[in-house]
């Protein structure tokens, strides 16, 4: 697939758009449908498209597997940290009001941060899962070839 010129050209336009759309969903979630989860999925979808067209190895150069793994954990930690911050500032867990003086701003800050955490986790986990499945195929091939040599 990676040889197809037209696809490459289309993808070159499309992928940035998808990513941008993902970011829009992420940070516009309070005003329109969408939020961290959907954004993460869309963002990951853009990356997967990239991987399908340019090959997995190239895609992994953009975001290495190790980074996905770490970011996935970092995302949930971010979420949890916001909750802990609420406790540290004298509220309950996941209480956003103590974060800032203005209640609305505090809530919005809290919501945006946790949604971002969700977004990061979802995007990286989806990418990670895709990578694992796609990797598997090449690993099988390698083994089959080894096996052929042996026999």
């Amino acid at each position, binding site marked *: 697939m990676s040889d197809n010129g037209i696809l490459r050209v289309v993808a070159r336009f499309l992928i940035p758009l998808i990513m941008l759309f993902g970011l829009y969903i992420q940070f516009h979630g309070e005003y329109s449908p969408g939020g961290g989860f959907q954004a993460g999925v869309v963002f990951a979808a853009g990356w997967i498209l990239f991987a399908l067209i340019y090959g997995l190895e190239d895609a992994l150069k953009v975001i290495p597997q190790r980074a996905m793994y770490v970011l996935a954990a970092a995302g949930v930690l971010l979420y949890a940290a916001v909750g802990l911050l609420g406790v540290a500032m004298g509220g309950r867990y996941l209480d956003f009001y103590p974060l800032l003086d203005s209640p609305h701003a505090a809530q919005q800050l809290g919501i945006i941060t946790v949604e971002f955490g969700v977004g990061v986790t*979802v995007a990286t986990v989806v990418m990670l899962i895709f990578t694992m*499945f796609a990797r598997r195929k090449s690993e099988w091939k390698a083994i089959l070839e080894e096996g052929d040599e042996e026999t």
Partner: protein
Amino acid sequence: MSTVLSFFNYWVVVALMMIGFYCVIARGNMIKKIMGLNLFQTSVFILFVTSGKVTGGSTPILREGVELYSNPLPHVIVLTAIVVGVAITAVGLALAVRIQEAYGTIEDDHLGDDDDDERLALEARQRR
């Protein structure tokens, strides 16, 4: 008449649920099973969302001039549940891949009994 109409939605849900459930139990292929699971869950989502719908209401995003909103709570529930669903799908498929490697098939009917050495040992014991 209105009763029938008002329940139509629920019955669609029930029909979908039954199809999905059947797919899970009766189908041997693991991928099919997972698809069935998805169908099954989706039907529950529809049930949930249905419960939040208010006739004439609109998407629960605050706008000028809209008075009647549908209930946002079921939407939140379903969002979370969808995420759970996809997580299960991913894990299930990963398991299916490993099973394919280990057994060479993902047809559930062909698996299990063939190398159940406990059972074989038990039979041997009973014969004795």
